[in-house]
């Protein structure tokens, strides 16, 4: 018997989910009897996602893995899908109170804490820092912001006014905002983008870093960035950032297929599967790039 599993990202225009999709496709091929359908809203917008879930229910797919765009909205959709006999798991972003069977992904609070900890370890002497976030509506990003703030609370780091800025997942805007933040506070000690956006535009990012190279080399300006896509690792290797903390989207894609298949086969699955975090600095970047 073959199974059709749908994997629904929050937004298709985010490269993060491309990696998850690749993981899912690869695993589906390996398993042989599984088809992976990748489809979600183009932009991050909850109502559209809910409608897509509805269509998958109509189509009677065999299982759904959802990156939840809005908890309350998805809770209802998940309920509807479950009622139609379709098992649902979540990945990347969870809907804790819902009828989803399992969650595969990162603990976003921990993610934020890890970012903060990296910064505190790199520069215990502290200073002013700013956060760049993606969109004000995203719950997982809000958790990361909270995590960063929490882990830096006891340290000498203080957040500047006007932080976080929101780049709407637009790489160009993220870099422009970083430049503006630096201009607004010339003694800014660190910027923590809690997503990989600025580095998705490597040349623009390099141009920004090069302008501040002196301060970075002198240890006066630190960049700790979230996510560990390949281009980001290369930038870290070349000295364009101090540290990266990454999730494992590829693994999320793979595990989604495994978990759904296990559920279909009647197996028992753990409710929460954390895919873990990669903490990358100069020391281990070469190894990660392999």
């Amino acid at each position, binding site marked *: 018997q073959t199974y059709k599993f749908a994997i629904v990202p929050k937004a298709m225009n985010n490269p993060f989910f491309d990696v998850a999709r690749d993981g899912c496709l690869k695993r589906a091929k390996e398993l042989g009897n599984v088809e992976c359908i990748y489809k979600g809203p183009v932009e991050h917008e909850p109502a559209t996602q809910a409608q897509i879930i509805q269509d998958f229910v109509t189509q009677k797919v065999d299982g759904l893995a959802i990156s939840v*765009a809005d908890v309350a909205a998805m809770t209802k959709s998940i309920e509807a899908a479950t009622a139609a006999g379709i098992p649902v798991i979540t990945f990347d972003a969870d809907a804790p109170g819902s009828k989803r069977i399992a969650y595969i992904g990162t603990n976003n609070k921990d993610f934020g804490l890890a970012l903060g900890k990296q910064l505190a370890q790199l520069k215990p002497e502290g200073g002013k820092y700013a956060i760049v976030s993606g969109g004000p*509506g995203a719950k997982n990003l809000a958790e990361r912001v909270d995590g960063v703030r929490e882990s830096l609370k006891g340290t000498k780091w203080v957040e500047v006014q006007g932080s976080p800025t929101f780049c709407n997942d637009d790489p160009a805007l993220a870099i422009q905002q970083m430049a503006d933040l630096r201009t607004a506070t010339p003694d800014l000690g660190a910027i923590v983008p809690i997503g990989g956006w600025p580095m998705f535009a490597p040349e623009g990012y390099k141009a920004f870093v090069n302008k501040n190279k002196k301060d970075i080399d002198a240890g006066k300006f630190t960049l700790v960035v979230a996510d560990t896509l390949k281009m980001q690792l290369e930038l870290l290797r070349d000295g364009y950032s101090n540290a990266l903390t990454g999730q494992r989207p590829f693994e999320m894609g793979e595990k989604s297929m495994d978990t759904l298949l296990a559920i279909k086969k009647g197996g028992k699955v753990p409710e929460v599967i954390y895919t873990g975090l990669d903490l990358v600095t100069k020391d281990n970047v070469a190894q990660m790039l392999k």
Partner: protein
Amino acid sequence: MAMQLESPVSFSNVGEIKWWRRGIFASQTGYVLLALLVLMVVMHFASPYFFTQGNMQNVAKNFSFIAIATLGVTFVIITGGIDLSVGSLMCFSAMITSMVMSGLSTPGMPGASLFVHLAADGKTVVANLPGLILVVSIVAGLAVAFLVGLVNGFCIAVLGLSPFVTTLGMLSIVRGLGYVVSNGRGSFPGGPDADYFYALTSGDVLGVPAPFIYLVILALTMAVVLHHTSFGRHVFALGGNEKAAELTGIPVVRVKIEVYVICALAAGLQGIIISGWLGSAPANMATSYELNVIAAAVIGGANLAGGIGGPLGAIVGCVLLEVIRNGLVLAQVNSYWQQTLVGVIIILAVLVDRIRSRMT
């Protein structure tokens, strides 16, 4: 009178217009409707699930979700204006409604004591008068929509600003306010009346989704207003020739303000209904819906230059967009190609109308 009636005023060179060349059969709306029917047949062959009852219910519900706002925007488009703030406003009104609903249902919040009390167990919240909170919160949501519409209308009609710039500014303002009031988090309907709220927004009557019923009622009302009241006539006149409307003594300023208010109220109501269905009013809800809403109106035959449009066209446009979206998912078209196909089908649908006007 001096002159003798040599030849009576008559219309000997004017025939009867054939019924198939009149009204809807001679309009873009009619031909897009035709394209829609063709598309539905195609979708039926592309996916066996398309014409199932469940899917038809979904389609009916989904298009009703943008159709009410489209009715509102159609008013604005007929006057020759545009309203880009509908998407943001849908979110903001929904947010205010759920915030008020939760707020009034939380003992201890200001004013809440008027509406709720704690049950004997000291935990369950009980409404003093069931349904009152619901009414108050919906009124609150519509009230902010009303205000936004008033500001839009004031800037455009009284200050004479361009509708595009004004409503684009408002798009930004309202979305920003949504973040401010909810602190970026969005909000959830809650409290003892939430169940009524869900029943009213995502329930159905004999299998017909509630939003669809509202839509039908509003569309019929709109048809009457547009074609059988002087307000409607003035709306058309404004779109046809604003100068002339002013000269013939139509209260141009008032009519303009009214259409923007109507549009805002429709968007607000739409947002409230969506949030009931979603069970939440997230801060990024309805992002960039304004383009869909305007596109639906225009595809259905409303003319951005003003003077043409109507409720049937608005609905046909919305159904078309929804059938394309739903159909492509059901047909399991590769998601990356889907977006391309959406564009192609939109263009083809309006092309049908052009072919008609070429032929005559």
